């Protein structure tokens, strides 16, 4: 299965092409240009370099959010346009899950963070676990069971045949689903788990100073080879979703912002304040 993956959710822009277990090409940039200036030129470069016939692409994977609203929409509109023109479906890959997937095999707690402004981060908590019996026979298809909303995502290589010891697969377990939360609340969650934790993501430079004094567990920061969004990781999760039949029509896809717009929030807050006053028996003053 040939998967074309895009990620424009954060500061990094990335495109990748995978076929089954092979990463054919990947292009990542973290540069001051906007994603609308980088994403499609990078894809064009990739296409030329590996002589990609776009009509052979089976699925388009896209980092579906959370992330920068504008970045998410550049990725989404690009994926939707490609989907419309090529007649293929999309895999809407949760951004934070894909980030965690960068640290395949890590049995510590994995904590991706993206700067969400207003003192918050988009984050989640994950870990990898070895699973499957050592003496099990036959292929254990990665993520064969749809465990509902991607709570358990299996990632595995091909199974060994002659060794007598079955290759196991590692499953990514979601300890806390991706969400927007304050740095303080995140520290509370990490401390509650009480396990060694690896942090990554473009939220690390932005929020580590605030987070560091709050942590009560040993922690480390991932290095540059794997500490930002990688479109290849989006492709891996897109492949799993495709196998599980969890694809969406390009026309129906919208990003997962995890937040309402400021105008909606203020409108709801105003409505809530008014309801409180009414409950307290105070009629709000309105101009005649």
């Amino acid at each position, binding site marked *: 299965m040939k998967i074309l993956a895009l990620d424009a959710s954060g500061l990094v822009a990335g495109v990748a092409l995978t076929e089954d277990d092979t990463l054919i090409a990947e292009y990542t940039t973290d540069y001051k240009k906007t994603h609308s200036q980088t994403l*499609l030129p990078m894809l064009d470069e990739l296409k030329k370099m590996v002589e990609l016939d776009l009509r052979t692409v089976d699925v388009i994977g896209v980092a579906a959010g959370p992330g920068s609203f504008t970045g998410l929409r550049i990725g*989404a509109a*690009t994926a*939707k346009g490609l989907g419309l*023109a090529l007649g293929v479906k999309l895999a809407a890959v949760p951004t934070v899950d894909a980030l965690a997937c960068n640290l395949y095999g890590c049995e510590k707690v994995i904590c991706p963070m993206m700067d969400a402004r207003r003192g918050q981060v988009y984050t989640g908590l994950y870990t990898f676990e070895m699973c499957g019996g050592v003496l099990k026979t036959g292929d254990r298809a990665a993520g064969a069971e749809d465990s509902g909303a991607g709570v358990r995502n299996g990632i595995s290589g091909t199974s060994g045949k002659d060794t007598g010891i079955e290759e196991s697969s590692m499953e990514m377990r979601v300890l806390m689903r991706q969400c927007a939360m304050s740095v303080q609340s995140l520290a509370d969650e990490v401390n509650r788990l009480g396990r060694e934790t690896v942090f990554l993501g473009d939220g690390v430079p932005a929020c580590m100073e605030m987070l560091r004094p709050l942590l009560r567990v040993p922690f480390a920061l991932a290095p540059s080879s794997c500490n930002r969004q990688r479109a290849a990781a989006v492709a891996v999760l897109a492949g799993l979703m495709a196998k599980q039949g969890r694809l969406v029509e*390009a026309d129906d896809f919208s990003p997962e912002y995890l937040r309402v717009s400021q105008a909606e929030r203020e409108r709801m807050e105003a409505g809530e304040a008014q309801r409180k006053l009414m409950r307290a028996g105070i009629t709000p003053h309105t101009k005649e």
Partner: protein
Amino acid sequence: MDSVKEEVLILAVETSCDETAAAVVRNGREVLSNVIYSQIDLHTLYGGVVPEIASRKHIEKINPVIRKALSDADVSLPDITAVAVTYGPGLVGALLVGVSAAKAIAFAADKPLVGVHHIEGHICANYIENKELEPPFLCLVVSGGHSHLVMVKDYGVYEILGRTRDDAAGEAFDKVARAIGLGYPGGPKIDRVSREGNPDAIHFPRAKVDDNVYDFSFSGLKSAVLNYLNGCQMKGLEINQADVAASFQKSVVDVLVEHSMRAVEQYGAKRFAIAGGVASNSHLREALQEACGKREIPFYRPSPVFCTDNAAMIGAAAYYEYRKGIRHGWDLNAVPGLKLGER
């Protein structure tokens, strides 16, 4: 421009504000489809366009709108010659949805990409229903975001004679409509209510701009209306909504007509056209019709569906750009403050 008449089919996309639109246009003047999804009900809740909400809605609607434009025109992507898209001016987040989708479609379908200036689109809307109209002509572009008096010297060649120094004409309509309790969008509401009002009931100022006789200023007029309303309130006088609307509207129309006709005379324009959302205003259309009639020059105005933001006009503008050899790269970005005539 080569004279060989190959058939050019343009798929055009427009998402600069709160309309998600796509169209298919043949040879710049024949509209095969024109699909507009208006978000106006959504923004009415907030009394104006909320950029983030508009951008989110564009993402939801962009593919169905493009798909419908293709099916209404009974064409498929391989039949298309080029893909065109508005890349400015407008709301950056809104523009980016159309720009990103159009680029991806052009890229995947292996078609050339033509970026179009939104105002140029409005001007070119006049070509759609007036097959005989060709440059040079003078055009008044008035909408919620723009007020320009433009000499169209040739296809894609513009000289801006005047522009607003503050509020756009449509913006003044929206603000005054809100102040007199008509709500959003102000243009059509004031137009309707004014029919029952006396346009000479209140004299509001006609602002002049010192160093350029063709420039506009509408913020003073808006303040004058607000002062009048406050004055009435303090004196306990009843406000006649229809009279205020009609008098305000007359003041705007007078200024637009006066500046336009001064330019017609000064520049010896042989044709005059209007464009943009406010060009739907019935009083403005009547007044300009009369003024052009007096000077015996033809007056062109698009039907209301081509005055509002739409993609057919982008397809019309893109055709002339395409014929000139204008192509944009995959790095085309949204330019919220794009100037007319800039590339």
